[in-house]
């Protein structure tokens, strides 16, 4: 549904987005991750046709955004960052206005209006002025605007920003539900959100895509992914013994206090975490160590995020 090729955006001499390419198909929810100022919003603004890219191509639903913007925009629903609204309108009149711009009128318009009011839990503020709404309601009103024409493509810039935990959960499950038959891109800072709602994630840093994969694949790239954590007591010389086990490439002591010891054993290539854990349990038994903890690390997304994006910040600035 969405095809983006070598997208580039310069603001004066500053390069905000530098050669970003990705594709999103129907039924996919793509998470956009990245530190502040990495180019997430700029990329989304180009995909939605708000910014004109310096170079590159964008096609949405098979229509070229640069050559035929009005047609391409028809299949997109967009929730901009900070959920802007016309403060002088009521919720219903604002949504009716956006429905009209989407080409809906008459019965189709009022049906669409009722549908989104129900879907976004806005019925009780229907005739309230946007000015008087709380942040959560404002956000949901703008979200309702993005789905009023039931678009094939949804682009959401930080859809859960500023919401309370319950509302976050609501929005996330809504995204997941709608992701079944739409192509969705959403950006976020919250990594657990990616695991909760995305089928695929892209990490952007300094305008470039630095990682692209399913949340599970990304987690594998973490420094501790695939290791096994062993908590032992009364285990003298355990580190050396553990390193002799088949399939362990190296190990490190995470914590040591008194006769208690927590070790992290890294699997060598091609060794499964579960096999490694079993070997380590057997070792502890044969040495009559007290095994207090055994944990297979899946890797954490925030570790991956930090290791990928921070290493570039710390590296000497290479133009």
């Amino acid at each position, binding site marked *: 549904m969405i095809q983006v090729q070598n997208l580039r955006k310069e*603001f004066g001499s500053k390069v905000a987005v530098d050669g970003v390419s990705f594709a999103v198909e129907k039924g996919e929810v793509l998470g956009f991750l990245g530190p502040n100022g990495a180019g997430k919003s700029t990329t989304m*603004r180009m995909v939605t*046709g708000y910014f004109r890219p310096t170079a590159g191509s964008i096609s949405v639903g098979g229509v070229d955004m640069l050559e035929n913007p009005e047609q391409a925009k028809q299949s997109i629903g*967009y929730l*901009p960052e900070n959920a*802007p609204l*016309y403060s002088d309108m009521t919720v219903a009149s604002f949504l009716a206005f956006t429905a*009209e711009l989407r080409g809906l009128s008459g019965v189709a318009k009022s049906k669409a209006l009722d549908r989104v009011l129900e879907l976004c839990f806005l019925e009780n503020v229907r005739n309230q002025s946007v000015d008087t709404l709380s942040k959560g309601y404002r956000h949901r009103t703008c979200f309702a605007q993005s789905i009023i024409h039931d678009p094939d493509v949804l682009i959401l810039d930080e859809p859960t920003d500023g919401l309370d935990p319950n509302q976050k959960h609501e929005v996330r499950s809504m995204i997941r539900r709608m992701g079944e038959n739409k192509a969705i891109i959403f950006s976020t800072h919250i990594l657990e959100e990616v695991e909760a709602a995305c089928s695929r994630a892209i990490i952007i840093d300094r305008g470039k895509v630095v990682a692209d994969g399913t949340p599970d694949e990304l987690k594998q790239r973490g420094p501790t992914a695939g290791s096994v954590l062993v908590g032992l007591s009364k285990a003298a010389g355990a580190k050396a013994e553990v390193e002799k086990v088949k399939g362990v490439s190296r190990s490190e002591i995470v914590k040591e206090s008194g006769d208690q010891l927590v070790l992290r054993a890294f699997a060598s290539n091609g060794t499964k975490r579960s096999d490694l854990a079993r070997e380590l349990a057997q070792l502890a038994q044969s040495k009559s160590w007290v095994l207090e903890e055994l944990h297979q690390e899946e890797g954490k997304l925030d570790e991956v995020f930090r290791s990928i994006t921070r290493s570039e910040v710390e590296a000497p600035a290479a133009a």
Partner: protein
Amino acid sequence: MTKRDLHNTLAVFKREFLAYFNSPVLYVIVVIFLLASQGFAFFFGQFLDTNNASLTQPFFFWHPWIYVVLAPAVGMRLWSEEHRLGTIELLMTMPLSPWSAIVGKFLAAAVVWLIGLALTFPIVMTVNFLGEPDSGPIITGYLASYLYALGCLAVTSAASAYTRSQVVCFILSVALCLVFTLIGYPGIIDVAVRAMPSSMEWVVRFISYLSFMDHFFEMSKGILVIRDVVYFLSMIVVALVVTSLGLRAKRA
């Protein structure tokens, strides 16, 4: 213009028009306009003293000066407000051509002004009650006055496309409208002509020809010249093109 464009223009027009009536600013401006236009006519224009059943000198003469201040006050929210609220991002990612939005918004301000101008009808009734005015100059006077207001509104629309601050937009538009008014003011033209070598007189004449005032005077005297109407309409088109360039630059 397709049917779809018309539908979109109408939707934007409707929203903007209703927004005007939801804000107290509009009522204040209309009241000030009515007070100023009638007040000038009676106190400075010597509407009653001249003993002349005409609106040209006492009434329409003052309109450009009122518009220089009040038209920017009406038009300043057009695009500045969109920039400030961030709704410009919503509007420009909707499937509508920027022209539908520009024209829709401008028309909303134009119709608002038409209502304001129509509310000056008591003075027309007064002059008809007191004497027997020639209705030709009154009609062309109103047309000239309205076109002048539209010119100022279009200039304000252009200024508002470049800034998110209504205050900046207001000051900038008042300055621009003032320039367009003054460069055609007879006193100023005379001074300029005398200051310049005679070979350069055509430059002054040309610049003054571009002013709103030059064309306003002709029409308000009751001479309906197509040329002047075309002038105002083309100035409006130019200002709206500048608006569209401003919006594009902001999205660059």
